């Protein structure tokens, strides 16, 4: 199967969906290829209350509305697929999926978003859902009257540590630096909480247990000493990483793996644009992702129309 499009968008979060809406509404044949669930990280947001024009809506519902809008204008969407190969060079770009499907296009919009960072310590996969969690609101009540660890030092980690004190009898925050990166009010609330204790300049190096998590190894980064620490659960909030591993060597990335773009959301590769949380920028919101997607789509439209115009001139010459 080989299908050609004017534009292919990799990623179906708010940036990819906004780009899909604009490109397909411009009557350009558009395909969104999404490796996860349509909506990206937006779909995971319990309540979106700062999206202009919508008083309050769940991220799941907002995702579905954006998806419907894109499809209404003719945008095709393939979700929960895996990309096995990507070619951005030359006038014709291509994406191959692991089921062998090949899609080509004149232009590409990269909107792969990001994902929660994991610790990467031994045993982490084994105890996911059996003591290790990445969502306090989802799993907090399983840890009622239990002693838990929260990993991280940003706003999410400290705010979730405080919220988990509603359930847990004791919360120990493990953070790799000697200071927190969170806002001062979050630091004050967490550090003054009677149920919360701190292990600074420390990291978890291994998880242990039988059916459930029972302990972790914690390494003191100052002394190098590792000690075993009894715990019933570990909640991990150590930020996000861009989903750009598949773009290594294909488009210019910064040291954090974020895609570099200009003001038109164009990358260093001709005909390739980028949008959303995977782009190098300071602020990451649903609104900024939608704005990125809009700019990328309009710039891609101009690029595609320019190509088509040149092709017409060659044919008529």
């Amino acid at each position: 199967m080989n299908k050609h499009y004017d534009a292919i968008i990799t990623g179906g979060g708010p940036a990819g969906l906004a780009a899909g809406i604009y490109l397909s509404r411009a009557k350009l044949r558009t395909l969104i290829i999404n490796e996860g669930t349509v909506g990206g990280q937006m779909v995971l947001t319990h309540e979106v209350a700062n999206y202009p024009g919508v008083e309050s809506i769940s991220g799941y519902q907002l995702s579905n509305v954006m998806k419907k809008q894109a499809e209404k204008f003719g945008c095709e969407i393939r979700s929960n697929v895996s990309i096995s190969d990507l070619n951005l060079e030359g006038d014709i770009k291509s994406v191959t999926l692991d089921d062998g499907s090949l899609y080509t296009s004149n232009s590409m919009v990269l909107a792969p978003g990001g994902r929660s960072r994991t610790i990467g310590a031994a045993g982490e996969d084994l105890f996911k859902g059996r003591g290790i969690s990445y969502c306090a609101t989802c799993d907090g009540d399983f840890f009622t009257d239990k002693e838990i660890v929260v990993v991280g030092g940003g706003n999410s980690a400290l705010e979730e540590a405080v919220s988990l004190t509603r359930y847990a009898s004791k919360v120990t925050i493990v953070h790799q630096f000697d200071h927190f990166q969170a806002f001062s009010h979050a630091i004050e609330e967490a550090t003054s909480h009677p149920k919360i204790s701190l292990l600074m300049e420390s990291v978890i190096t291994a998880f242990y247990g039988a059916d459930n998590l029972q302990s972790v190894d914690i390494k003191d980064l100052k002394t190098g000493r590792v000690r075993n620490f009894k715990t019933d659960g570990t909640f991990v909030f150590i930020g996000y990483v861009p989903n750009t591993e598949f773009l290594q060597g294909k488009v210019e990335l910064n040291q954090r793996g974020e895609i570099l773009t200009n003001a038109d959301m164009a990358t260093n590769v001709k005909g390739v644009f980028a949008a959303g949380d995977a782009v190098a920028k300071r602020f990451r919101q649903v609104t900024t992702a939608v704005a990125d997607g809009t700019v990328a789509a309009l710039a891609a439209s101009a690029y595609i129309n320019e190509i088509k115009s040149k092709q017409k001139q060659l044919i008529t010459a």
Partner: protein
Amino acid sequence: MLYTNLTHVESAAEHTKIIAENENVMLICGRMGPMCIPVYGIAEELEKEYGHVKFCDMEFDNPEAHVIRNLPEVRGFMGIPFTIYYKNGKVVKATSSIQNKNQITAILDKEFGVAVKA
């Protein structure tokens, strides 16, 4: 309330009926949260491919969900969703927390047989 396009199981009686009337059942018991929504999304996609499997969901906080929460197979689970796979009314597999599409299709293929593409 689960805002999904899956069949909703709302009572213990409905649960009994569904696993009795369908040879292969995947039931996701969760909330509308970050760990559950991706699993619902994958199930909605797979429903089109796996015609021989009944895909459904149940609210974790529904008191009737005791039929899931009290299963011996979920003892020790500390992350939602609890996803239960039934064959001929018996639990053949149960998972805790978020799973990706490859993990889910591996279970479906092993326990219920591979999808028949139209």
